[in-house]
C-alpha cells in the first residue's frame, strides 16, 4: 500500500518533454533574436498556467542553441515552474544538424515507457543549415521518441529553406512562416500551447490543433 493507503506503489503524473531549438547564427542578429528572446519569455506564464491546470502532466523544458556548433542553452529537464529564459545572442553559421543530434542524444536517454507523453520539439530558424542536416535529422528520427514527437518549425524571414523544415516536421502544416516580428511572437506563443493538446490522456503526437495556428493575413507585412 502507498503512503496514502491506496493499493499499489509510488504514483506520478506523466512527463511531457518540451524542447526549444533556437538558431543563433549571425543572420539572426538584431530584431530577430530580440523578438525570439522576448516571445519565448512571454510563453512562460502561459505554460505555467497550463501546468497548473493539468497537474497530471509534468511539463519539462530544455533549450538548445545553434550557430557554429550546438550547445544546451537550458540543459537538463527543467520543470516549467523553475524555467527561466536567458537572452540568446547571435553570431556564426547554422549548425542545425548538430542541434538535432544533440536533441536526439537527449531523447535516446528518455525511458521508453507508455507513461511518458510525446515530446514537443520547436525549431526556430531564419536560414539554411550549413552542416550535415540530414545526418542530424536521421539521428533524431532514429530515436523512438524523435519519431513520435510533435515537431514544429518556425521559419523566421524569407531566406529560410522551408523544404528542410518540412523534412523536420514531416508535415507542411507545421512549418510556420513568420515574416515579421508580430507573427514570430504569435507562432512562438501558439507552439507553446501545443502542450495542452499533447498532455490530454489519450492524445497522440497527431493531436496538434492546426486549425488554431495563427493565420497570416494580407495585413501582415513582410519585414524580414
Amino acid at each position: 500500500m502507498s503512503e496514502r493507503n491506496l493499493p499499489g506503489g509510488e504514483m506520478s503524473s506523466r512527463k511531457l518533454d518540451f524542447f526549444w531549438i533556437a538558431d543563433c547564427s549571425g543572420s539572426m542578429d538584431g530584431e530577430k533574436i530580440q523578438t525570439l528572446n522576448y516571445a519565448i519569455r512571454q510563453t512562460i506564464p502561459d505554460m505555467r498556467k497550463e501546468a497548473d491546470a493539468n497537474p497530471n502532466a509534468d511539463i519539462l523544458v530544455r533549450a538548445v542553441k545553434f550557430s557554429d556548433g550546438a550547445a544546451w542553452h537550458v540543459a537538463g529537464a527543467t520543470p516549467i515552474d523553475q524555467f527561466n529564459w536567458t537572452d540568446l545572442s547571435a553570431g556564426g553559421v547554422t549548425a542545425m544538424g548538430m542541434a538535432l543530434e544533440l536533441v536526439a542524444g537527449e531523447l535516446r536517454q528518455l525511458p521508453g515507457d507508455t507513461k511518458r507523453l510525446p515530446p514537443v520539439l520547436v525549431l526556430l530558424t531564419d536560414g539554411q543549415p550549413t552542416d550535415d542536416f540530414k545526418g542530424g535529422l536521421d539521428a533524431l528520427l532514429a530515436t523512438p521518441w524523435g519519431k513520435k514527437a510533435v515537431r514544429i518549425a518556425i521559419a523566421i524571414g524569407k531566406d529560410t529553406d522551408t523544404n528542410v523544415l518540412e523534412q523536420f516536421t514531416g508535415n507542411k502544416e507545421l512549418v510556420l512562416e513568420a515574416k515579421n516580428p508580430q507573427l514570430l511572437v504569435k507562432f512562438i506563443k501558439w507552439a507553446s500551447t501545443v502542450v495542452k493538446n499533447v498532455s490530454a490522456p489519450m492524445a497522440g503526437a497527431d493531436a496538434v490543433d492546426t486549425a488554431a495556428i495563427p493565420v497570416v493575413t494580407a495585413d501582415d507585412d513582410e519585414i524580414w
Partner: protein
Amino acid sequence: MVQGATHIRQDKICQDALLLCENGNASDGQVFSIACVADGHGSDRCPFSDQGAKAAVLVATDILKDLLMNPDPKEMLAAQKDIRLPRQIEARWKETVHKMYLEQEVETPDDMPPFSYELYGSTLLALAAASGFIFALQIGDGDIVAIEPDGLARWLLPPCDHAGNETESLCMDECWKYIRTQLIPIDGESPVPLMFLLSTDGYANSFVESAGFLKVGADIYRMWREHGRDYVQENLPAWLSQTTTDGSGDDIAVAILAKEG
C-alpha cells in the same frame, strides 16, 4: 470505473466501459464468469469513443457467452482463439458502431462527421473463467493481471509496450490481427491463480514503475482476503479516484474476478 481527473477538469465524459456477466446455473450450460473493460481513445478524432468502448464490451461479452454455453467451450476456444474469434469480434464491433452511427445520423444529421470506425476507436480487454480453463483476450493497451497463490501478481498477456499514448485499436483495418489471446487450462498440474484484475491503461500509467502497478493486484488480493469482497467493492471507487488524481489523470475501469472461499 471512475472518470479521469483530467477529464473532469476538461468536462469530458468517461470514455471507459465495463461489463460483467456471470452464469451460475449449470443446468443450462457451463458455469462461467466474464469480465470486459474497454478504453475509448477520447482524442478529437474519436468523438464517439465512449460508445465504441460500450460496443466493445457488449460485443465481446455476447460472443464469449455464446462460446461458453457450448458443451465443450475449451475445445472451441482452442480452435477459434487465433483467427475465427478475433475476426468475429472485429466484424461484430464494426457492424455495431456503424449501426450506432446511422442511428445518430438520423437524430442529429447536422452534427455528424463522415463515417469512419476511428470515430468510435477503443481498446478491449476480456477475461473468461470457467470450469477447466481461463481465457484472456486483449487489443491495445491496458492490463490483465493474475494474482498467483504466492500472492504475487503477473501479467496474463504481455503488456503493450508502445510509448507515448499509442495503442492498437478495434478501429484499425484488420484489427483481428492485433487481438492477442491466451487459453490457460486448469488441469490440476499448475497452480490456479487466486484473482484476476483487468484494467484500462489509466491505472498502470499512474505509477512510477510497472512494479508499483503490479503491487495493486497483490494489495487488493490481500485486502480481499483480510476484509472480504464487500470491503474491496466499497472502497475501490475512492481508490481509483485518488489514483487518477495523483497519477495519470485518465479514466480508469477495473474488473476483478476472484475465487470465493
